[in-house]
């Protein structure tokens, strides 16, 4: 992994900042939610307390008279509406006024809210009641195989004209029983009439204009929709259906009115219209209040939830994106709370207050904080990451420069080139300076080593000359024959020493020769041919094979040096090959270079020799003879190869039978 990548990953660790921020935002949100829940609970309890004992509001029931202290209120009688009888009707709290058209499709679909009353299988009706604002709405669905309208244009009191009729019976606000009947000459609007008995006993049926309705036939019966102002109504309320099969016939009467005097059997359990205005004073956007009876039926509600929902669409894209990371799935956007409403004595439950609040308000609050926090921490992260990346890139650049410099400082020839100076004050600068110092010392050492052989040869030459000239003079003197043997040995020894000196100076002289060499164009094939022919004569105990291209290969260079290089390669091959071995000299060509290969059978190169074989004074291979070896031969090969723009290398033959030395010469 590169340094750049590592630091980049390290930089990504700063993303823990926004992550922590998200966690914090969640914490904050749940704290907010809890606080909001608590305050909502307090609100609901406050409102519920304010409604304590307000049965007049909840159920339109007058509070017990204050002077009734003498007669302790009956536990149950006090709140009779809490124990509903079979004929009691509990209207729905409607959210919109139904259109009075005799159709049920604008009523809420709530099967449990229907009440059914029946005489027998053929005579039954269902009744659905609801309250909207100050009106009671009634939906009747009457089963009747033969719906019959009143005869049109007749006196509504003439029994012969009677068709199917519906009676509404109710107590007015004073507790008086009153009745109206509803009749229609055909589908459509229905009129309500009350029967009044005049001074003289004559009866009239004036229209009750406050009650409106519509009548529509339906399959197996008819449907009637009515609207009655709540102000007309007291507690008692009932419906009676007169089902006639023919006009004027005796009706089959059934319903929630006593059939003899049409007095109400049941009650209408409904909140006072004032309740909703009472609730309205607590309203604020995003809040919904509902008062229910103890069973959970809504008596009245005030709803301003929707007033805030529009705000969601304004949320910026970024916030919505953040929200996806922060919101836990299943978190509800609504807060709910409820509080019981007790009676005056705080004994019995008379209802419940349900408060609902949208979460929008604190979600927006949270979003705002979250966005600022995330924007801040993400940009901090981005800045940190990019700074780290830039720093890493810069470091990597410096390191790679350093590496390149250190690689190129020590050339393959062992030459130490200059190392770029740096004035950086940090550790990398120290490393570079350390390298520089090291290389400088190495350079001194290398050049010392390089000139050592030459210097040594020079220094030894003078004493050797003394020895040799003394020996030569000694030979001219009268020396006893016995001493002559030693003299001869001393002379041989000094000759060998001389040969060693010449060999030691060879590299220096080659360097000089290279320095003064002139480049000419010459045919490499001809030179190699000639040289190999010479080696056949020089080394009769080896076999030489030349594998050379048929056509001329002209390169620029110094043929003398090439031959000298070949001499060293052949010397090497001869030294390390057994007698009668076959030494191959091959010339191959590729696009840029001519490649001279010399193969000889013999011991393989040790791995540790790799790359060092061609260095000056490097000799670890034991030659076959006792001639002096200073490891200069292959060094000379390298010098000459490099003079020709090439390089020297050595490999073991693939079959392990020997060694191949290769020299490339640029063409």
């Amino acid at each position, binding site marked *: 992994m590169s340094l750049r990548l590592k630091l980049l990953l390290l930089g990504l660790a700063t993303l823990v900042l926004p992550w922590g921020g998200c966690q914090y935002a969640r914490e904050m949100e749940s704290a907010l939610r809890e606080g909001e829940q608590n305050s909502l609970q307090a609100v609901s309890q406050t409102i519920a307390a304010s409604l304590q004992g307000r049965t007049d509001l909840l159920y339109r029931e007058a509070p017990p008279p204050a002077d009734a202290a003498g007669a302790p209120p009956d536990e149950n009688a006090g709140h009779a509406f809490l124990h509903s009888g079979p004929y009691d009707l509990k209207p729905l709290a409607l959210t919109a006024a139904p259109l009075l058209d005799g159709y049920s499709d604008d009523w809420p679909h709530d099967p449990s809210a229907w009440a059914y009353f029946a005489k027998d299988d053929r005579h039954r009706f269902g009744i659905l009641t609801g309250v909207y604002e100050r009106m009671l709405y009634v939906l009747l669905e009457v089963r009747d195989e033969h719906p019959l309208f009143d005869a049109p244009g007749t006196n509504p009191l003439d029994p012969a004209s009677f068709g199917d009729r519906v009676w509404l019976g109710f107590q007015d606000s004073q507790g008086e029983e009153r009745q109206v009947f509803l009749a229609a000459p055909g589908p459509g609007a229905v009129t309500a009439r009350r029967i009044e008995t005049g001074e003289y006993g004559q009866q009239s049926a004036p229209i009750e204009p406050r009650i409106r309705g519509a009548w529509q036939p339906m399959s197996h019966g008819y449907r009637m929709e009515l609207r009655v102002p709540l102000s007309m109504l007291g507690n008692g309320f009932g419906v009676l259906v007169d089902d006639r099969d023919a006009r004027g016939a005796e009706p089959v009467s059934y319903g929630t009115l006593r059939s003899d005097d049409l007095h109400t059997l049941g009650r209408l359990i409904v909140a006072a219209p004032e309740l909703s205005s009472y609730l309205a004073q607590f309203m604020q956007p995003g809040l919904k209040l509902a008062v229910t009876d103890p069973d959970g039926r809504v008596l009245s509600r005030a709803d301003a939830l929707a007033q805030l929902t529009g705000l969601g669409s304004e949320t910026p894209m970024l916030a919505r994106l953040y929200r996806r990371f922060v919101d836990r799935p299943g978190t509800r956007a609504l807060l709910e709370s409820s509080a019981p409403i007790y009676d005056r004595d705080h004994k019995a439950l008379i209802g419940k207050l349900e408060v609902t609040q949208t979460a929008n308000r604190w979600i927006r609050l949270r979003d705002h904080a979250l966005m600022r926090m995330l924007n801040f921490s993400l940009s901090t992260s981005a800045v940190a990451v990019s700074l780290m990346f830039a720093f890493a890139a810069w470091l990597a650049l410096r390191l790679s420069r350093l590496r390149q410099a250190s690689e190129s400082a020590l050339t393959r020839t062992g030459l130490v080139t200059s190392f770029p100076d740096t004035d950086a004050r940090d550790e990398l600068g120290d490393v570079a300076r350390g390298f520089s110092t090291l290389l400088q010392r190495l350079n001194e050492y290398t050049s010392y080593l390089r000139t050592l052989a030459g210097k040594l040869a020079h220094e030894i*030459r*003078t004493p050797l*000359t003394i020895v040799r000239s003394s020996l030569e003079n000694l030979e001219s003197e009268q020396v006893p024959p016995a001493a002559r043997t030693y003299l001869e040995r001393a002379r041989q020894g000094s000759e060998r020493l001389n040969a060693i000196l010449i060999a030691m100076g060879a590299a220096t*002289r080659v360097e000089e*020769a290279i320095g003064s060499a002139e480049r000419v164009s010459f045919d490499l094939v001809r030179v190699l041919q000639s040289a190999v022919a010479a080696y056949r004569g020089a080394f009769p105990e080896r076999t030489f094979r030349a594998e050379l291209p048929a056509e001329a290969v002209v390169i620029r260079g110094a043929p003398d040096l090439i031959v000298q290089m070949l001499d060293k390669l052949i010397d090497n091959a001869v030294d390390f090959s057994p007698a009668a071995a076959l030494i191959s000299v091959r010339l191959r060509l590729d696009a840029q270079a001519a490649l001279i290969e010399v193969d000889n059978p013999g011991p393989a190169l040790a791995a540790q020799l790799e790359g060092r074989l061609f260095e000056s004074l490097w000799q670890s291979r034991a030659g076959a003879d006792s001639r002096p070896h200073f490891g200069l031969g292959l060094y000379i090969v390298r010098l000459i190869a490099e003079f020709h723009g090439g390089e020297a290398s050595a490999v073991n033959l693939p079959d392990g039978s020997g060694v191949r030395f290769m020299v490339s010469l640029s063409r």
Partner: protein
Amino acid sequence: MKRLVAIVEDEAAIRDNYAAAFLREGYAVRTYANRAQAMSAFAARLPDLAVIDISLEDEPEGGFELCRQLRALSAELPIIFLTARDSELDAVSGLRLGADDFLTKDLSLAHLIARVNALFRRVEALRRPNTPDEIVRRGALALDAERMQAQWDGQVVLLSLTEFWIVHALARHPGHVRNRQQLMDAANVVLDDNTITSHVKRIRRKFQSIDPKFDAVQTVYGMGYRWVE
């Protein structure tokens, strides 16, 4: 009258050994350790031949200076450089200063004596009139073995003793390849291959300075050289 050989050499042991060898050969010998000594003696009397080391005591190039001064005193005096320094540059500078030969100290005494003898023979031959039968002619080349003088197209090619002997060895049998060892033997020297190569190069250059088309000394790669007519 014995010929006088002057030896200028700062290493006493070598100086005395050389002196002994020359004395044995019948030469009169004077030895000097430094340039000042040598010059004051030469001012009084010139030797017949001078053997000079290059570095003399505290003068690393003292021999060259001495050679120059000596050559100014006499144009014909044979001068031999005998030194431990074997670099090409030193050899070239020495020969350019007018030395007749440039030898390294690994040369044996016998070889040194042979050269000194040869130089004296040349001095004598130069004093005598030409004896044409001693001259080897190979085309444009005329080699006078007695005077150790080479001519090309009638012009004298100034060769050092070593160079003359190499040319002589090659030209005596034109077309025959002489390997380096043979050339060394002919020149009475022990040299390494590179020195022979540079000698041959110098020889070619000297001939080419007279005749730019000179191409008589051919390299036979891996073997040696031959003279081509």
